[in-house]
């Protein structure tokens, strides 16, 4: 793509029609919770946009975020939009390695100083001066501080970069922190989720291209267009919650009828994300539609927030009870343990349905 070419000109040169573009904007407007009538306005603005330089640095992460994006797009129109950002550095995807790769990074930062979008996935290790996670002999902490200086905006991709994620979970041996704990003088957009929804990333980039600004963010720095409502608010099972119809186990009558999974520990009511509308696996389904409650993966510290199968209205920290038992005396703890074991054994011998409380033991 020529440097001065707009997205629409580039698409037309590739043989794509205006209708294709309008269609893409209709799907994007749907995802961004904009009224369908906004599609035409978006097409107009996005068509005139020019591609930005993007530098993507992976830190303490599992590559799940990259997997999520690369598997879900190609070769859709979102993929094409993604092609049209100038992805100047991405260690997992780029062909170059070693000194060549590091040179590409330095060149991209120099040529586009003050204008590039920096994407970070993974948390930043601060323990032992960042020595727990190094690339090319440099700590992630050091790389982040250098790359952030020339960035126009930073996208913290995934729960690890946004809130610390698994690396930050107790006892956080590497001193992992989110990007926002290190960088204070640049706009940071958190796209949380483990992994995040791929099209949300495209949506944020499209927003940046369409309006030339960072989208409106919530108190956790996430774009409101995608994280403005809870999973619960957009869930097709929500009416059953309102009617007081709940599944009590994963295979009872209520579960078969598709009733609300609140009592089985669904974290939908406190989790902000777009899963219920954009869905996963090419729009096939999302966890609740597949019969499992939301685990709240796009919320801060979700790993340490208690059991996934504990209903929100019941106490969610089993460790408290262990501590209480210890204070009350070892005998009480042993008694609880025996009672649980006996119940589990009884259920096993009678082939009873396992309940959520069994899963917690």
């Amino acid at each position, binding site marked *: 793509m020529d440097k001065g070419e707009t997205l629409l000109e580039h698409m037309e040169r590739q043989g*794509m*029609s*205006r*209708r*294709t573009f*309008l*269609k*893409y904007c*209709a*799907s994007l*407007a*749907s995802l961004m*919770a904009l*009224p*369908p*009538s906004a599609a*035409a306005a978006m097409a107009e603005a996005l068509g005139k946009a020019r591609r930005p330089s993007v530098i993507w640095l992976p830190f303490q992460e599992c590559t799940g975020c990259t997997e999520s994006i690369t598997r879900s797009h190609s*070769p*859709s*129109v979102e993929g094409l939009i993604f092609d049209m950002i100038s992805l100047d550095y991405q260690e997992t995807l780029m062909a170059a390695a070693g000194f060549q790769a590091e040179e590409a990074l330095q060149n991209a930062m120099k040529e586009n100083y003050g204008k590039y979008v920096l994407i970070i996935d993974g948390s930043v290790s601060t323990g032992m001066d960042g020595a727990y996670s190094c690339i090319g002999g440099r700590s992630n902490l050091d790389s982040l501080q250098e790359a952030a200086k020339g960035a126009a905006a930073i996208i913290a991709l995934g729960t690890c970069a946004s809130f610390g994620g698994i690396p930050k979970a107790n006892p956080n041996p590497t001193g992992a922190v989110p990007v926002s704990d290190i960088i204070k003088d640049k706009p940071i957009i958190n796209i949380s989720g483990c992994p995040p929804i791929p099209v949300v990333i495209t949506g944020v980039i499209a927003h940046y291209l369409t309006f030339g600004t960072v989208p409106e963010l919530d108190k956790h720095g996430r774009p409101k267009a995608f994280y403005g409502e809870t999973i619960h*608010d*957009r*869930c*097709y*099972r*929500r*009416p*059953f919650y309102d009617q007081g119809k709940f599944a009590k186990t994963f295979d009872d009558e209520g579960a*078969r*009828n*598709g009733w609300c999974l609140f009592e089985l520990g669904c974290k939908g009511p406190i989790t902000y994300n777009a899963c*219920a*509308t954009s869905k996963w696996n*090419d*729009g096939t389904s999302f966890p609740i539609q597949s019969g499992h409650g939301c685990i709240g993966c796009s919320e801060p510290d979700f790993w340490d927030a208690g059991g996934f199968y504990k209903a929100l209205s019941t106490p969610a920290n089993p460790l408290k009870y262990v501590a209480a038992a210890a204070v009350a005396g070892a005998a009480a703890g042993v008694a609880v343990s025996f009672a649980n074991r006996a119940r589990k054994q009884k259920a096993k011998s009678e*082939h009873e349905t396992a309940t959520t409380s069994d899963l917690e033991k």
Partner: protein
Amino acid sequence: MSSISQIPVQVLTANDGLTGQAEAVLTEIAEMLSRFLETGKGDSIDLRSLPLSPADKIWLDEQLGRGEVEIGIDAGGRSVVTETAYAGVWKIEHRDTEERIVAELIEVTAMPEIVQPHKTDIEKSYNTLQSSLKQIS
């Protein structure tokens, strides 16, 4: 459990899973039609943004029925624009090149926007046709 036949299988009826949301959508469509008749201004509903259960979607499709017109669009994947049994109410389904549904809309208008060619494209085609004619003559 001694045999597979003892596993309790229950066949759900078509009304199982209805949440009552689809009925609200139908009322909204009636409102939009009324507005269109009064002002000539079209409107649309994004079906994917609504918490409709699979049963709700089937119910809504049955209620809207099918009209006389079906338009296929081949642009970055297949799109189907179908007139419902109610004139002026269209159902639009956009798919990408891998057949994944990317948008599902109800549009209340005389002719959905995606069907109509853009003025710039018409101007371009006029110029192309003119140069073709020059080459022929």
